[in-house]
């Protein structure tokens, strides 16, 4: 079974390798590795493959709000060469352009805010849809059958729910954990499914995007500080057991500490997932850099193994993000936080 799977994944990797864009992008060294950065960052269109001169892409809406022109809707295809699908300043459309680094810009240089449905937004809604579908079908099992043994989707979701509730929420938050369990489960499932689906060929690096991790970290930051009790704020602004002159140093450090916690959350998930993608793509790129079949085969085997490791990383990072969120909330709601943390 394992051998079959391995053979299948090797074949699949070789196949995907053949279709990945750089295969046909014969040219400079930069071209052979540029697809790596192109993959890990967000994009205004979803590029799947280039077969010959045909680009298999999903055009995406570009939504812009500017003070002088209001809300405007375009498509990504408006800003590119229809033959090569390349973006560039020369393909400006109604005063906007997307440059060759996939940045939206305004010809006259005025400020604007972008609300485009980018590749990662589409990916995110896909993940949200899948998480919602799986969770709701799991919940419908309980609605139909009452409190009985789980079956189907409920059998997959229930262990996760119980794990998050008992191992993460209850252990890290303490007696007031119940209120935070729904957020923690949603967070875990969103990150986990995002990480896993991001590993699929052609998928977007959604959970490895800093905007996504930033938003999640900000939500955790808001929840943590809104739930902060008297002890928590006393710990920040009048740290117990510290002489008053020392508070001049301690208080700024504590205030910075409030922000470093979610910052660490944001960076950890972003780096872990993006690094995984870069390593995988780097191994794929080796074959094209050396233009050797032997290295291609070896790097494909490596890619398979790293993919397996990435499956683990996907789960660990989802767990770690949820666990740290729970611990920060736990620190904020603990009755005598200053007793346990010194």
């Amino acid at each position, binding site marked *: 079974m394992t051998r079959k799977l391995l053979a299948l994944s090797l074949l699949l990797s070789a196949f995907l390798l053949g279709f990945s864009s750089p295969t046909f992008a014969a040219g400079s060294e930069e071209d052979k590795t540029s697809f790596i*950065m192109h993959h*890990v*960052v*967000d*994009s205004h269109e979803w590029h799947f493959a280039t077969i010959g001169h045909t680009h298999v892409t999903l055009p995406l809406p570009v*939504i812009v709000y500017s003070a002088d022109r209001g809300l405007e809707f375009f498509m990504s295809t408006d800003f590119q060469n229809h033959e090569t699908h390349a973006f560039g300043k020369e393909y400006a459309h109604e005063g906007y352009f997307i440059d060759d*680094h*996939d*940045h939206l810009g305004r010809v006259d240089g005025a400020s604007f*805010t*972008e*609300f*485009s*449905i*980018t590749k*990662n*937004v589409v990916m*995110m*809604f896909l993940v*949200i849809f899948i*998480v*919602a579908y799986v*969770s*709701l079908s*799991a*919940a419908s099992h*309980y*609605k139909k059958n*009452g*409190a*009985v043994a789980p079956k189907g989707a*409920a059998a997959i*979701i*229930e262990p996760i*729910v*119980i794990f998050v*509730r008992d191992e993460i929420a209850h252990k890290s938050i303490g007696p007031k954990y*119940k209120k935070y*369990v*729904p*957020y923690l*489960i*949603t967070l875990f499932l*969103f990150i986990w499914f995002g990480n896993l689906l991001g590993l699929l060929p052609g998928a977007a690096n959604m959970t490895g*995007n*800093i*905007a*996504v991790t*930033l*938003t*999640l970290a900000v*939500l955790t930051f808001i929840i943590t500080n809104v739930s902060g009790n008297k002890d928590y704020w006393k710990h920040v602004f009048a740290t117990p057991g510290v002489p008053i002159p020392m508070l001049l140093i301690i208080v700024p450090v504590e205030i910075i500490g409030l922000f470093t916690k979610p910052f660490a959350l944001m960076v950890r998930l972003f780096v872990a997932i*993006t690094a995984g993608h870069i390593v995988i793509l780097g191994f794929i790129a080796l074959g094209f850099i050396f233009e050797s079949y032997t290295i291609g085969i070896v790097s494909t085997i490596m890619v398979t193994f790293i993919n397996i490791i990435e499956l683990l990383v996907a789960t660990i990072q989802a767990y770690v993000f949820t666990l740290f969120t729970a611990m920060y909330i736990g620190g904020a709601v603990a009755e005598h936080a200053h007793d346990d943390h010194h």
Partner: protein
Amino acid sequence: MDLITPGSGLIFWQLFGFLGLLFILIKFAWKPMLAALEERESSIENALKAAESARNEMANLKADNEKLLAEARLERDTILKKAQEASVKMIEDAKIEASKVAAQQIENAKAVIETEKRAALTEVKNQVAILTLEVTEKLLRRTLSDEKAQKALVDEFVKDIKLN
């Protein structure tokens, strides 16, 4: 797009999407699910507690039964012991009574025998006296007439006595 510059569009849609997901899942998935889980857990706990208490009750019942049994056994033993004692005593009493009666009877028999013996002796004495008187009478009558006849008579009497 940049690697470490968060895009405003993505943040906006992410907030919108994630909060929507959170809202929908809390309302339609996690609340019913967590409630069902809690219900199931409490029902399992109750079932376990009920089983535990049933087991305890069972043990208590068993202990009670054993106690009752032990008491019954003790009572039986006492009754048996008492009965045995009573029977032994009865036998002893009967023996004593019997020996008393026997002794009395022997005493009585002895007395009767003594009386009978005395009566018999008296009778014998009387008979001897009567016989002696008769012999003496007949002797006296014969002596008066003849010496020879007298002797013959004595012999005859003596013969008579032997024959008797």
